[in-house]
């Protein structure tokens, strides 16, 4: 209990002090994870909708695999991306290993299945309700998928937020492909891991509290927007 008390004190100090290094680390965490989520959404939303609406051989297998990827361990993703981006690997010449770009890349890979799998479920549920009507009006499969994506926007926002949560909370992937370089690729989670391994537990936990608080604030804001919009549109 003593450690937790100290941690809360640390957290308060950190937030009140606006320590520039902390601000830089928090900023980087959010920018990396937001970018990753944007990429993941640009891929995952249409992919999920397409799988929901289309009928093709092997569809059930695709759905099972997609759902299984929800359990992809972040450290495994980190390792695979590292092997891809290493100079000894196929994408080595890009030279983005140990940079924030590599972290965005790895997190995007981690989050895309999450968004795709949940989108697939939401859109498929909606499709069951809308299929006949949309067909009757003459909507082709692409038009139908886009229409459903927009119609399911409230559930999908929650899905995207879930993806963001996964990204900003993970440490396995960014640690390996980013290298936790001070001032360059150190994010909240890797900083917490570092402080823990140095034995400075109150600071580590304090950083954790700061991270959780920020994510909580983000979710609260998104929820309010979602609720207001839902009241208006049903």
């Amino acid at each position, binding site marked *: 209990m003593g450690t937790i008390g100290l941690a809360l004190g640390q957290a308060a100090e950190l937030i009140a002090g606006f320590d520039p290094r902390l601000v830089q680390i928090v900023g980087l965490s959010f920018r990396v994870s*937001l970018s990753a989520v944007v990429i993941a959404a640009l891929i995952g939303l249409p992919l999920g909708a397409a799988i929901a609406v289309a009928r093709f051989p092997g569809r059930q297998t695709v759905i099972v695999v997609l759902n299984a990827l929800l359990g992809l361990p972040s450290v495994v993703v980190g390792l695979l991306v590292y092997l891809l981006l290493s*100079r*000894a690997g196929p994408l080595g010449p890009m030279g983005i290993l140990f940079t924030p770009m590599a972290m965005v890349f790895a997190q995007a890979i981690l989050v895309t299945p999450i968004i795709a799998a949940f989108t697939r479920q939401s859109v498929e549920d909606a499709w069951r309700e809308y299929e006949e009507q949309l067909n009757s009006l003459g909507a082709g499969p692409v038009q139908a998928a886009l*229409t459903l994506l927009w119609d399911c926007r409230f559930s999908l926002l929650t899905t995207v937020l879930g993806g963001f949560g996964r990204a900003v909370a993970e440490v396995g992937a960014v640690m390996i492909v980013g290298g936790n*370089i001070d001032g360059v690729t150190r994010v909240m989670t890797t900083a917490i891991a570092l402080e823990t391994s140095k034995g400075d537990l109150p600071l580590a936990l304090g950083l954790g509290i700061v991270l959780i608080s920020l994510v909580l604030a983000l979710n609260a804001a998104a929820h309010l927007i979602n609720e207001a919009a839902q009241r208006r549109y049903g």
Partner: protein
Amino acid sequence: MNGIPRLLLVWGLIAAHAAAIPAVAQDKFITVASTTSTEQSGLFGYLLPIYAKKTGVQVRVVALGTGQALDVGRRGDADVLFVHDKPAEEKFVADGFGVGRREVMYNDFVLIGPKGDPAMVARGRDIVAAFRKIQAAQAAFVSRGDKSGTHAAELRLWKDAGIDLASARGPWYRETGSGMGPALNTASSMNAYIFADRGTWLSFRNRGDLAVVVEGDTRLFNQYGVMLVNPARHPHVKKDLGQAFIDWIVSEEGQRVIAGYKIGGEQLFYPNARRG
């Protein structure tokens, strides 16, 4: 505006904003693969700003276990290696992955143990004797078990003590497979003996009931070496900037800076670069 156009606009705005990811800096920088214990000692935090101010070159340190650091070097993902496992480093050069190895500094290892000292090793100067006593008493001992330089040094000492770990191993010998800090955390919570580098120990906050029990044996000295990743093998390596850093580290000035790094008034690293 309804439907699809609005969706695209919103995504576009978010993407444009989030894409303000710091681009890989156009400033000069090199990538140095080093070890977690070196980084956690705080040496880099002290030394690198001095170097940056002097040369304008940003030194980016990726801190890993020695084994992983060497692997990074083998793959060409770093420009310079700064580790402390002389046999492994010499093999690295012999295999053609590194060039121009120079000795830089040494620090020492210490044996940490509970103040209660169940194996009765405290105050001794003979590390090998201490290891024998610990094994005889089957006292709890935490090992990093991660193929790091520290781990390799520990294993050499067991060998010197004539103890075959494979057969002597038992519940008293705990391998964590982790870095120095986490292993110390484990030892602290278990009140066990642990073989550690002094640097990490000095900055370690979660000591519990542990203290230094054996130090000063020459066998405990931990030699650091620095070298360039072989540019013949990896043409993209920043050999000029990398070599400049190496030259500075072993120069009089660099060596003075290393000696100047202290924790709680205590010097951690002893520069010992020789000419050439």
